[in-house]
Structure formats: structure tokens, C-alpha cells
């Protein structure tokens, strides 16, 4: 691994599909060899387009793509040492599983005996040893996923691109595949670039994450950096759930200027008359208690005029639904407050802003919660 020869280097990468905004808007990015790199963002944020630009399925409007120090911007997909695992797997339905896996070797002119031997080996690696003679249509979703992995890795690409590969699988299978993906990457030692809109998946798997928003990288860092130190309201809200304090409320509640975020699991809720156990407290009224299994989500209307979400472990002292409407004291530590230095372009409109949604919505979406 060397800094001057990254596996992938994107410089000023821009793609316009003719609309008002660029789908990809001037991305500069280095991805190191052997890295498990995730591109995380909502749909339409440009992450898949970046992947397709790296694979060569799209031509950039401006900028370059380099692979191990070599400019491949003008090369056709078949001329790049990069392979893709497609979202819909794209297994050839008329070929057997073995022929699918052997395809990349076949078009490289590898003899039938040799390519079948290698394909069988690759199928063993993904634990599908006996399935070579089947057609893709006879496999389950998880099995097809593994065939797609085997097919893309049997030719030993320098970089493997994965386009939401786990999106079509159910939760249990997805968690199992996450582990397998991580193991496979360690085993093969090739660079993985993983596109997903599932923040939990990105946090679990990645060495580094790039959070995409509107064609740009909003923040780049390790999972811990992204989760613990989000730089913008967008990242704070998209990666996990955050209580976001706009400038005025920051001054009123937190006692400091600028925009700030506070994770729900760092917020405590106690009776109004109890002795505070935290550095800071603010009075409010318990508006809603939502039971989520191991935790409860408490929604409190602060007297300062803002709604805050707290996540409490469900132990013996758990707050119950009966306590709705009672006066409470919300507490937190100063060190858990994160200053959002980078304002997201569209935060001026609270009605459509995803960042303030979580703090103002009376029924926050369960799916954005990391502590699920």
C-alpha cells in the first residue's frame, strides 16, 4: 500500500445527465489498496453513478479515474481491471452456475478444463461447491449473491465494486452475508468499494466511509469518526439518529452558539424532581414512549421549544407509556455534544430537510436508528 499509488484515484470527477444539478459533482477521492471502502448515501446522491464511472459503464463529463496510478478514464469496461457485483446480480440465465463463474476466464481464453477447475474452486470459497450444474433460476437470493461474488472474484480484479449487493436479501441473510463479505475481502486482499444506503451496513463493514449527498462527498472518515464526529447536519441525521440543535436553540438549551448534534443514546430522562446525574439538564414534558424491544424511545418536548429524542435501556426502571405527559428532566454530558461545523446547503428549509426531521417529527422513523 503506497500513498502515491492508490487503488483508485478520482480527480474532479463530474457527471451530468443533462439535468439542472450534476449527478456527480467534482469528486476527489483516493481509495487505498486493500481497503474496504463504503459509499453511503440516500438514493439519488450519486454513489451508484460514481461506481458506474469507476467500472466504465458511464463516461464522466469531466475529471479522471485512475486505477493503480494509471488513467483509465477513456477505457472500455472490458479493458479495466475492475469487476462489479451487480445489485440484481445479472447472472446469465442461460448458463449453468459453473459457466457463469467461469465466464470471465472463458473470454480471456483460458482452456475449458482450467477455467472449470478455477470456477469450482471459487464456488467452494463461497460455499456453493455442489451447485455448479444448476441454472441461476434454481438458486435462492443468497445463493445467487454468492455466485455473483464468485464470478466477479475468480478473475482476481484489482478492485471489486459492489452495488448494494445485499439490498435484495432479508435481514438474517444480510447479516450473515456481511460477515462473509468481510471474510472474503480479508482472504482475497483486494480493494472493495461497497455502495449502500444502509448506514448500519456501512458502519459494520468498512475501513472508511464516504457519505454522499447531492453528488458530493459530505464527509469522509472511519466509521467511528463518521458516527461520533459528524461534521454536518446531514451526516448527523443520515448516519444514525441525531437530535439537531439549530443556532438559536443551541444558545438557549446548550449554552453555546452554532449548530450542534446530540445522539439519542447519550440523552437521559429522569423525573423532574430527581437529583441530576449529568452535567447539564433541561426541563420538559414527556410526549411519547415507544417500545423498541431492548430499548425505549422517549420523545420529550423541551420547554425551550424543541422536541428531543432519548434512547433508554429497558431495565427494571423503564419509563412506561403511562407516564406520558409527566414533567421530566432531560440530561447530557458536555462531551457528547458534537459541533456541526459544516452547514449542509439545504438546511435553511426545515420542511424538507432530512437533518431536522428527526428532531421535529413526532413519529421518528425506526429505520434510521442504529440501536435497533
Amino acid at each position: 500500500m503506497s500513498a502515491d499509488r492508490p487503488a483508485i484515484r478520482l480527480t474532479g470527477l463530474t457527471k451530468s445527465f443533462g439535468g439542472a444539478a450534476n449527478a456527480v459533482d467534482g469528486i476527489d477521492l483516493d481509495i487505498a489498496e486493500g481497503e474496504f471502502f463504503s459509499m453511503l448515501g440516500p438514493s439519488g446522491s450519486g454513489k451508484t453513478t460514481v461506481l458506474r464511472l469507476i467500472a466504465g459503464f458511464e463516461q464522466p463529463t469531466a475529471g479522471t479515474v485512475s486505477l493503480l496510478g494509471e488513467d483509465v478514464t477513456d477505457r472500455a469496461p472490458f479493458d479495466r481491471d475492475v469487476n462489479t457485483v451487480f445489485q440484481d446480480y445479472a447472472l446469465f440465465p442461460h448458463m449453468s452456475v459453473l459457466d457463469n463463474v467461469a465466464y470471465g476466464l472463458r473470454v480471456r481464453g483460458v482452456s475449458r478444463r482450467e477455467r472449470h477447475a478455477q470456477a469450482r474452486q471459487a464456488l467452494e470459497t463461497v460455499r456453493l461447491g455442489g451447485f455448479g450444474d444448476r441454472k441461476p433460476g434454481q438458486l435462492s437470493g443468497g445463493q445467487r449473491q454468492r455466485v455473483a461474488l464468485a464470478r466477479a472474484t475468480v478473475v482476481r480484479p484489482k478492485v471489486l465494486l459492489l452495488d448494494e449487493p445485499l439490498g435484495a436479501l432479508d435481514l438474517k441473510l444480510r447479516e450473515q452475508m456481511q460477515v462473509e463479505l468481510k471474510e472474503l475481502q480479508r482472504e482475497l486482499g483486494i480493494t472493495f468499494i461497497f455502495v449502500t444506503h444502509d448506514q448500519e451496513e456501512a458502519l459494520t463493514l468498512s475501513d472508511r466511509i464516504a457519505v454522499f449527498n447531492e453528488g458530493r462527498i459530505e464527509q469522509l472518515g472511519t466509521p467511528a469518526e463518521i458516527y461520533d464526529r459528524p461534521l454536518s447536519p446531514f451526516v448527523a441525521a443520515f448516519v444514525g439518529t441525531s437530535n439537531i440543535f439549530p443556532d438559536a436553540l443551541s444558545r438557549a438549551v446548550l449554552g453555546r452558539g452554532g449548530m450542534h448534534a446530540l445522539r439519542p443514546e447519550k440523552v437521559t430522562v429522569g423525573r423532574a424532581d430527581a437529583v441530576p446525574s449529568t452535567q447539564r439538564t433541561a426541563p420538559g414534558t414527556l410526549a411519547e414512549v415507544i417500545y423498541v424491544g431492548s430499548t425505549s424511545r422517549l420523545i420529550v418536548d423541551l420547554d425551550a421549544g424543541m422536541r428531543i429524542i432519548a434512547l433508554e435501556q429497558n431495565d427494571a426502571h423503564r419509563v412506561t407509556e403511562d407516564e406520558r405527559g409527566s414533567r421530566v428532566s432531560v440530561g447530557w454530558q458536555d462531551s457528547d455534544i458534537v459541533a456541526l461545523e459544516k452547514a449542509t446547503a439545504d438546511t435553511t428549509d426545515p420542511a424538507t430537510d432530512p437533518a431536522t426531521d428527526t428532531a421535529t417529527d413526532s413519529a421518528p422513523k425506526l429505520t434510521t436508528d442504529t440501536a435497533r
Partner: protein
Amino acid sequence: MRLSRLARGILGAVTGVILLVIYLPLMVVLVNSFSTSTSLVWPPPGLTLEWWGRAFQSEGALEAVLTSVQIALIATLVSLVLGTLISLALQRFAFFGREAVSLLVILPIALPGIITGIALNNAFRTILGVQLSIATVIVAHATFCIVTVFNNVIARLRRLGTSYEEASADLGAGLWTTFRLVTFPQLRSALLAGGLLAFALSFDEIIVTTFTAGAGVKTLPIWILDNLFRPSQAPIVNVIAVVLVLVSIVPIYIAQRIAGAEKVSR
């Protein structure tokens, strides 16, 4: 879905009547091919195998069948190649005038045959200065046969999407290899369906053929029309018709089997 007894009865009866209307006349032709009368009278006064024997010795009829098969085969082949190419161009590439070309390709099948016939006749003789021959008939037939191939192939390409082709390119295959190993196998049944239709269209075409056939080029439909009202030949026409019905069942049956097998394997 469940239907009431009455509804089922009525729908069944209507289906029966429609099938009868379609197939009863064919039965009449079949019976007439064994009739002792030469003037298509019903019911036949007696039965004989004479016409069947004479039909297979009739040089005119056999030659016409051969001419028709030859024209239909070559026109179908031309349509398969050109229809596939134009479908790929229109479905996989963006270029100026794509919509216009798409319309112009389909138009010939909607044009009245007599117009196509006159136009091509003029173009061949006066503008291009070519002698009308069997080749001119093939070209004329290909202009509308291409449409059935085009329609089938472009519908299939649209349904397939580009992800298989992208996966193939991603794995290192060039354009031609991708077509040979991935796209073509997926198009096979569409090509068969389009090709069978094209063959059938060409085989029984009569109007355009009349205008574009050179002297002495006699396709089967033209031969039948010429001989239908000659008392000595009418029974032989019946025999030919029966043979054609039997022969055309085979490819349709095969096409259905292929379509059925495909559904199962998907």
C-alpha cells in the same frame, strides 16, 4: 377466478362457434381433396385418391412450392440479420433521428401491399434499371418481413435490459463476444418467433409479389390463384392446400414448445 355455470356455458359455446368458423372451411378443403368432382361441389359425390397422386406429379405446383420456399427462406434470413442489427442500434445506442428511424422501420407492414408493390416496381425498373426477377421479390418481401423480426427482437432487448451486457463487458468480453455468448442466446426464441412470422408473411404474399416478380417467377400463391378456376386443376389446389396446412402446423407447434419450455426455466 370463478365463473357462474351460465357464464361458463355461454363462453364455451362462443369459443366453440369461433373455432368452428375457423376450422370447418379447412375441413371442407381436406374432404374436397378426396372428392371425385372437379368443381368444388358440396357434398362430394364420391371419394378418390387420384388428385393426391396427380398433385405430387404436377410440375407447376412443385416448382411453385420450391420458388416460394426459396424466396421465403432468403427473405427471412435477410430480415433476421437486418432486423437484429436495427433493433440493437435503436435499443442500445442513442443517436440523432432514432425515433424517426424506428417509425420508418415499422411503417412497411402497415402500408397497403398494392402501394408497396407499385412503388417497388417503379423503383426497380425505372430508377434502378434492374430486371424484375426472383431477387427483386426477395428484396420486396424483406421490406415487410423485417418488421416482425424487429418487433420481436426489440421487445426482447427492452425486457432484458442492459445489465447482462454490462456484466459481460465487466468480466472482460468485447462487443462481439458479448453478443455471441450473452445477447444472442437470450434472443434465440425471439428470433425464432420473428423468423417464423416473417417466413409465413413471405410465403403467402401475393400482391407485392405480383408487381415485383420477373417473368416466369411463379410463387405458390400465384400458382394457386392461376389454377383455382381451371376445372382440371382445382382438386390439385385442394391437395396442395391440405399439405400446406399440415406443414405449417409443425413450426407453430415447435414455437409453442420452445415458448413453453422457456417459461418453465425462468
